């Protein structure tokens, strides 16, 4: 294995660049290094102005999402040696506005996440000294969707989100479903009103790329299709029983 590898990194300074351009950097190729290590090497030794987000460097915080050779990846979980002999192209995450270099504006996702009401909603609160008990089977029903680290790689992979910025997106819907399936939650109908709209769950055409790129195996595509089934059953029930039977 050669001991150097070239990275082609997007550089963009909004103050004086019209559009992003690539700059090449040669970094050491260490067997255990990930792309994030290479970016930190560039910042420490080659070009201190390179700007990028990262935090935990172990795949749990969701900060370091970027596009590596065209694929959305967490750079802390992407081994440099897998791309030898290179070059490795590192770009900011797709489908988000680029603020600077590899940093994108994620505020759109945060707005949509808030619309999903990702918290336990109770119609009737229990008194403070009573617990909400939950069996392992009840936990199992939503656990997979609770693994989301909000890294937004699914938004970068979703062509619907790229084409229609109004689409709620995979993570927001998967997290809504996480709370809908939680036995302690009573807010399913509140979320349904917001999400079962044209740009909510119905914007999804089941491309499935979100599930492919998810680093935590959340399967947002599955969550959305299950939600579509639930929404359809609710609509049928509302026709048959207009006044509802809770």
């Amino acid at each position, binding site marked *: 294995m050669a001991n150097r590898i070239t990275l082609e990194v997007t550089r*963009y300074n*909004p*103050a004086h*660049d019209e*559009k*992003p351009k690539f700059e090449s950097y040669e970094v050491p190729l260490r067997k255990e290094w990930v792309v994030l290590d290479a970016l930190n090497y560039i910042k420490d030794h080659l070009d201190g102005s390179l700007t990028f987000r990262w935090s935990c460097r172990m795949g749990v915080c969701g900060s370091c999402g970027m596009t590596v050779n*065209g694929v959305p990846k967490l750079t802390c979980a992407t081994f440099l040696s897998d791309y030898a002999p290179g070059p490795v192209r590192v770009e900011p995450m*797709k*489908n988000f*506005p*680029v*603020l600077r270099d590899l940093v994108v*504006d994620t*505020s*759109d996702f945060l707005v949509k996440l808030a619309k999903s009401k990702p918290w336990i909603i109770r119609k009737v609160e229990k008194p403070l000294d009573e617990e909400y008990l939950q069996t*392992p*089977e009840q936990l*199992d*029903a939503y656990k997979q969707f609770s693994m989301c680290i909000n890294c937004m790689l699914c938004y970068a992979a979703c*062509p619907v989100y*790229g*084409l229609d910025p109004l689409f709620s997106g995979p993570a927001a819907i998967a997290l809504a479903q996480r709370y809908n399936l939680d036995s302690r939650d009573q807010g399913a109908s509140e979320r349904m009103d917001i999400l079962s709209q044209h740009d909510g769950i119905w914007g999804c*055409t*089941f*491309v*499935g*790329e979100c*599930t*492919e790129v998810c680093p935590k195996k959340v*399967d947002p*595509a*599955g969550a959305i*299709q*299950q939600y*579509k*089934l639930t929404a359809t059953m609710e609509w049928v029930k509302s026709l048959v029983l207009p006044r509802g039977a809770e």
Partner: protein
Amino acid sequence: MINPTEYLPKSYRARLSTYWWLTSWAYLKFILREGSAVFVAWAVIVTLLQIHALRGGPEDYAEFQNWLRNPVVLAVNVVSLLFIIFHAVTWFNLAPKAMAVRVGGKRLPNLAISGPNYVAWAVISAAVAWIVLRG
């Protein structure tokens, strides 16, 4: 969105190319899968034409069969068959993702949902073939 300020004058928004679906094999497979609906519609049209020809009598039906033998029509129908098979296979393989059926607390494996679909497809196809070919 973040509004431009003195220290953050603007952001760069890349436009998604019209040919985004050519940039990866997964996207191309998705567009082909969606496009197969056109060939499913064509198969329905051919079936309706066949029924219409049946009602017309033996000469009408012979004309229909001649039309089917036209090389262009034959080629289109062969391509349609391939797309319809692709449509059915992708549909059956995606169905388990949309239905999280839990039995005794554990989720059923994907084959438990896609398997019966394939079996039903094979059985119905065999039955139709037997009815059509025995005469």
